[in-house]
């Protein structure tokens, strides 16, 4: 019987992956998308273990990292989206011990949505529910064809499901609402693509609520009233609807109120759920872990004396860097010099910086200490939380000499 593995290329965590192994390396990857194949085969430039730019032994690097973190008054620990839940818990413990700021990517992307879900403010469902039941699927500010390549084929649009035996041809309607005609918009079809102006999402939601309430839907940008009414007709008739919320929507909303209103209205007239299109494979895991520990999903600073968690925008990675309130940083499985605005992340190069990652990245080039770790889901196992909140078990595929990030974090913590 075949052995199936999990791809950690994105938060879909596809668990139907088969691999061929040659000489302790993943040589061929079956069933994954191209991004997943590249992830599982590993990068061509692995990170080296260094201290002050010179090659070093792992033990030396770990002691240096421990020294940096204990010397710092206000260290920052950031990343986590590409780490197992076990490693994330170690990281939270390390932050508590060192009185650190701790944050993850959700702080400037899907955080508000995951928070609303964990606080039971939004109705959600699993991707398996979507596969088996969803007949109306809205991609709002989301382009899974690029960000989550197998979303449409495994779950949301193309597959046959228990109650959707005729798949996309007859049983499912895909709708894209976006500022740009994305590849996903092309799949939805011109008829089902609603192009709105930048920042026009909240108004479009209000207009839909009006239409669903039998009122005339109006937008300041004069969106075709007939098209909104027709769309609201489709939503009303949905047996099982789902809104897949992408970053385009998250960034456009100043507050979530319009989304809450729309979800409430949709659930008065039909049945709708919402799933955040989480990017990194275990971002949601970090949110769950920190929520369990502190009651907050991200943006925490631990008080060094009391261990209490302070939480707010000021404790976010972006504001902590903008305000230069951190004096050292540990980055795990992330490349903030690439993924944050350079105007914000540039400060990292001015403070003692530690990077833990399987691959060389921009942040590593500016780091005092770099410690290579095993590639999650390939060289190390563990658990992770899929974008819909389902826990997924990852098995190790090949052996490696490298430590896992969990082990590295444990050893740094012990050395402090």
């Amino acid at each position, binding site marked *: 019987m075949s052995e199936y593995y999990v791809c950690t290329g994105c938060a879909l965590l596809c668990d139907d992956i088969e691999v061929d192994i040659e000489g302790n390396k993943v040589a061929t990857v079956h069933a994954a998308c191209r991004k997943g194949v590249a992830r599982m085969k590993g990068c061509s430039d692995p990170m080296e273990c260094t201290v002050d730019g010179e090659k070093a032994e792992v033990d030396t690097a770990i002691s240096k990292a421990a020294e940096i973190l204990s010397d710092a008054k206000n260290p920052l620990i950031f990343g986590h989206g590409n780490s197992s839940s076990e490693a994330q818990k170690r990281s939270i413990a390390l932050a508590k011990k060192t009185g650190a700021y701790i944050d993850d990517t959700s702080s400037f992307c899907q955080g508000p949505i995951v928070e609303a879900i964990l606080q039971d403010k939004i109705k959600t469902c699993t991707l398996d529910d979507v596969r088996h039941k969803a007949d109306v699927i809205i991609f709002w500010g989301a382009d899974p064809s690029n960000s989550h390549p197998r979303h449409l084929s495994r779950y949301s649009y193309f597959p046959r499901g228990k109650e959707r035996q005729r798949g996309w041809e007859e049983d499912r309607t895909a709708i894209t609402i976006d500022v740009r005609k994305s590849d996903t918009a092309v799949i939805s079809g011109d008829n089902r693509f609603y192009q709105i102006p930048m920042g026009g999402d909240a108004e479009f939601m209000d207009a839909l609520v009006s239409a669903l309430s039998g009122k005339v839907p109006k937008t300041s940008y004069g969106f075709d009233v007939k098209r909104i009414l027709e769309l609201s007709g489709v939503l009303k008739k949905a047996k099982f609807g789902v809104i897949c919320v992408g970053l385009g929507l998250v960034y456009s909303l100043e507050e979530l109120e319009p989304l809450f209103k729309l979800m409430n209205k949709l659930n008065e007239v039909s049945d709708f759920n919402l799933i955040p299109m989480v990017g990194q494979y275990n971002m949601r895991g970090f949110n769950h872990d920190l929520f369990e520990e502190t009651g907050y999903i991200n943006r925490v600073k631990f008080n060094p004396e009391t261990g209490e968690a302070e939480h707010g925008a000021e404790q976010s990675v972006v504001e902590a860097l903008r305000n230069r309130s951190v004096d050292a940083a540990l980055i795990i499985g992330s490349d903030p010099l690439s993924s944050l605005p*350079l*105007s914000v992340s540039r400060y990292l190069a001015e403070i003692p910086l530690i990077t833990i990652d399987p691959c060389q990245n*921009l942040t590593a080039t500016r780091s005092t200490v770099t410690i290579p770790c095993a590639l999650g889901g390939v060289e190390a196992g563990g658990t992770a939380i899929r974008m819909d909140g389902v826990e997924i078990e990852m098995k190790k595929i090949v052996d490696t000499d490298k430590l896992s990030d969990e082990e590295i974090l444990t050893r740094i913590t012990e050395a402090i």
Partner: protein
Amino acid sequence: MGFGQFLAAPEIKLKIVTYRDVFQNTAQETSRFGEDYEKLSAVIKLDPKDMVKLSIKEGETVVVKNAFGKVVVTAQSSGHEEAHQGIAYMVNGPWSNALVPDETGGTGVPKFKDFEATVQGSKGEKVTGIRDIF
């Protein structure tokens, strides 16, 4: 040699929206320092009418800058997108992030998908290398 070289290349201000691209993402998995990643990341997608205004052709490089940074990237004409004059698309990555403002209004969230920059033909400058962005 014509007069062209003495005239300043036309410059226009555009709104920039970032997006994800699976090919660029794949290249990133393989190597952030590879040729493919640069080729697929250091790109700006322009409306054909804006390209005329800039008097540039597909595949030429342009200087994109604002108060926060400056990068040279390759101009591409949009594909299936609807007309989007005044708006340009850049794939999410270090090149677009060099331009994202640090202004957040204290919210902790930068405007990754809504910022302004000026675009101007570069007269043949090379694309900014990833190590030179910093």
